[in-house]
């Protein structure tokens, strides 16, 4: 049996409501800039749109017509990640692709009058169904970047993209693949997407039709929380074995150390109220990392701002950390990006790396009255002890772990333990390995 390999992230690409490059994301957080706005149809909620023009981003590739908005974001982010990792001309043929994907609910952009479906369909392209197939983004990424290795598309609701990263991690760790591209892209900022969550009672109401009210709507872990704000985005990462990365001289941005997933077996949408099975996913991720709760120096919580998620998640985290007497800072990045649906885990990893690698953690926005005092929520921009300097040649002298959690409808739980590396002077000059 082969020894387990260490797995590092050597390139990141993202499309987020905070900006698409690490510099822009950092700048947004440091200046408190968000893009929350009131929704129009259906009205009364808050959304965070990403500044993304699919035609512009994918110009020159005519099959872009077959990508829904989330898939187009995914393809763009994947190309950025490959370029950032030094694979601008294409990925090795043995590279795998692991992509989280959500249901496409954007009927209104495909039909002129969604309320009269299906009166007219002569405007649809012949292979219109590709816009609805979950693996279309992965197929496009494979064609554009030449990655043809073992691949998987995860459709596990809001846990999907974190699971995609975890599944890629496991295959590299166990020697199935030397390198993989992993992440996801999704958008529910459409009539169908918003309606779905509005009907489920998951969206935070927007008290007034103003940007200020929209910016205040999502309040993770606050006693006054009423739901989430819808977001959209994508993020992909090049994961490779440390050996593979070192051989080609790539500088790691972070190390992926452990992954766990589980199902609640409890309800169709509600999480288990005590997060019993979410805890199992978290403990598995820590166990794979060879660590325990005391080694966790930051938690990037799922933190949607819904009544049930935040209660269950805080109960679970309290149970995890209380016996250690250790209270790592808890982040809720959805208070910045909105809930990017199946892409949330990957998008939040991108935001986390953009900030933690430069020494700070974003606060939980709109948190005035925390729902519990047993957790240490980040209240203002906080210096980050979770990122260590990556020492080339001596990567064994590292410990701090950040835990990422994604819990989806259907009781899908995923957790990832990562070790962000602080941007060294050289890496900072390269500006997070993101090409201009």
């Amino acid at each position: 049996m082969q020894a387990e390999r260490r797995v590092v992230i050597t390139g990141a690409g993202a499309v987020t409501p905070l900006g698409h490059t690490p510099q822009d994301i950092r700048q947004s957080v440091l200046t408190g800039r968000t893009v929350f706005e009131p929704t129009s149809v259906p009205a009364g909620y808050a959304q965070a749109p990403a500044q993304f023009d699919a035609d512009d981003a994918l110009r020159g590739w005519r099959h872009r017509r077959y990508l829904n908005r989330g898939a187009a974001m995914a393809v763009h982010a994947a190309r950025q990640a490959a370029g950032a990792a030094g694979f601008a001309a294409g990925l090795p043929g043995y590279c795998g692709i692991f992509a989280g994907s959500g249901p496409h609910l954007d009927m209104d952009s495909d039909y002129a009058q969604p309320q009269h479906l299906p009166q007219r369909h002569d405007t649809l392209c012949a292979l219109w169904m590709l816009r609805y197939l979950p693996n279309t983004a992965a197929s496009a990424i494979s064609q554009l970047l030449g990655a043809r290795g073992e691949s998987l598309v995860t459709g596990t609701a809001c846990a999907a993209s974190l699971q995609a990263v975890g599944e890629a991690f496991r295959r590299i760790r166990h020697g199935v693949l030397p390198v993989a591209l992993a992440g996801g892209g999704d958008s529910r900022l459409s009539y169908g997407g918003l309606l779905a969550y509005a009907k489920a009672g998951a969206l935070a109401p927007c008290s007034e039709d103003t940007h200020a009210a929209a910016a205040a709507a999502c309040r993770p872990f606050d006693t006054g929380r009423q739901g989430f704000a819808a977001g959209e985005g994508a993020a992909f990462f090049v994961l490779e074995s440390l050996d593979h990365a070192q051989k080609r001289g790539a500088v790691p941005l972070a190390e992926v150390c452990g992954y766990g997933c589980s199902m609640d077996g409890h309800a169709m949408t509600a999480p288990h109220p005590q997060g019993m099975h979410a805890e199992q996913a978290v403990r598995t991720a820590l166990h794979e990392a060879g660590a325990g709760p005391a080694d966790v120096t930051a938690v990037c919580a799922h933190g949607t701002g819904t009544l049930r998620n935040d209660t269950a998640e805080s109960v679970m985290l309290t149970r995890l950390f209380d016996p250690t007497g250790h209270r790592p800072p808890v982040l809720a990045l959805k208070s910045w990006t909105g809930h990017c649906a199946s892409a949330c885990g990957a998008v939040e990893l991108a935001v986390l790396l953009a900030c933690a690698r430069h020494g700070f953690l974003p606060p939980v926005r709109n948190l005035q009255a925390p729902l519990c005092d047993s957790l240490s929520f980040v209240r203002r921009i906080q210096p980050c002890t979770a990122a260590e300097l990556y020492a080339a040649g001596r990567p064994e002298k590292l410990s701090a772990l950040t835990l990422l959690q994604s819990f989806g409808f259907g009781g899908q739980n995923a957790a990832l333990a990562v070790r962000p590396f602080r941007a060294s002077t050289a890496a900072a000059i390269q500006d997070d390995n993101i090409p201009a």
Partner: protein
Amino acid sequence: MTQQTAPCAVTERVIGIIAEVLDIPPHTITPETRILRDLETESIDLLEFGVGLNAAFGIPVADDTVFLTSLRVHLEEARHADADPYKMMAGRYPHLSCDRVACILRTLDDGPVLSVQDIADYVLHALRAGQHEKAPSHAG
């Protein structure tokens, strides 16, 4: 003859459909452009051309006929049956003129023969035969 069925207007519209699907400027396409030889056309693009023709002209589109998809198969069948290839062509592709059929048979060895004008001629033939639909079809 309405403006839509004027031959040059039809050709122009066909060029517009092809340009949109292939994401290239219309001025790079002429009636003589060979679809599969001069342009980077894939099989799924032919599907999109077909849908575009149906939507633009309200005509039923038989992909096999308009895109000469099985031309070589039919010619081989005619050869085996010792049949006249011109007659076979006239029967299967009634939209093509005698001159065009002769040209196709003469240049077969040079590569795929389908031209933009062949598609425009198919559309004109369908419009003149009154095969256009009153409203776009509701498949399924």
